[in-house]
């Protein structure tokens, strides 16, 4: 099963409140696993938000972001039907994305 990712966008007037949930371990590289070995660093480094294909937010993140990251953003001048895409890329090159239409 693909790792789930979920976006929820609510439109209030011309402002869209966007919340995105990502499934990711966000390993700090300092935690020991059950085998006693250090779990290697594994974390999301880039988060990008696109509105109708145009990049509106570019985030860079560290291993200090909590496991299963949740971000909220706000977009202005948005309207129903606008296409919203969010993607992430981690330090191992894994990536994931999700999209929704504003309603």
């Amino acid at each position, binding site marked *: *099963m693909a790792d789930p990712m*979920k976006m929820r966008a609510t439109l209030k007037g011309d402002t869209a409140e966007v919340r995105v949930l990502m499934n990711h371990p966000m390993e700090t590289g300092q935690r020991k696993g059950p085998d006693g070995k250090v779990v290697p660093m594994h974390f999301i480094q880039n988060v990008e938000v696109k509105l109708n294909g145009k990049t509106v937010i570019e985030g860079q993140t560290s291993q200090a972001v909590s*496991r*299963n990251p949740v971000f909220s953003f706000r977009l202005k001048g948005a309207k129903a039907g606008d296409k919203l895409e969010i993607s992430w890329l981690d330090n191992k090159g894994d990536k994931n994305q999700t999209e929704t239409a504003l309603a």
Partner: protein
Amino acid sequence: MRIAERSSALFAALALAAGPAAAQSQFEKYQKMVAESSPVELFELVGEDLWKKKQGPKSASLEQCDLGMGSGVLAGAYARLPRYFEDVDQVMDLETRMLHCMMTLQGRSREEATKRLFGNADKPSEMEYLSAYVAGLSRGHELAPGQSHPREQASYELGKKLYFVRTGLWDFSCASCHGEEGKRIRMSELPVLYKPEAARPLMATWPAYRVSNSTFKTMQWRLNNCFAQMRTPEPVFGSEVVNALNMFLTVTAKGEPYRGPGTKR
């Protein structure tokens, strides 16, 4: 608003406005913010997939599982558990009933289906995902566990006794920690769970994403882990003891609209 700056009058006003269920707490803001930005929905999503996935010797999904409101009816079903099930002549909570459905609908053995009931952050369990999904479909429904059948009443009575019985290596009962108002373990406030005002907000938000485990935890896990802390042997999953405690807590919380799955420390 700074907690320390709140006047007691404002405190009282807030408590009244929010009803007795909303006890004031120094962690109120933390808990509110954590709940608002919780990844818990991810678990509901995976749970839905697993609920609909054909599995077991019978290659069947759980979609026809009867959680007490009829085969396949999920809306509000969790809020009405635990309850008596005539087909097994037993009181069951959500997890106990789902295990029953895995065995009957999917033809899985108890051994196989209970092999890994409690997962971890790296690999949550099937039961955890499923609990998240099914509980989520009771949001907005008032907790109304079964109380009409004599077996349901007996379950409540057993749970009530169990809550206070001191046992295990360290002589604890549930009430050892959850027995007196205003007490803490470390910095965690201890709800007095035999009182409705404390049981209501708690039972309305379990099962839950637990921040300290970074994963989703079920009610059976919650009780199992309390017994671990009490230094008893391990309660059997789905046993009468666990169902009775769950029944006691849910009846104590009855009437509260379910708003989980929640997010906890």
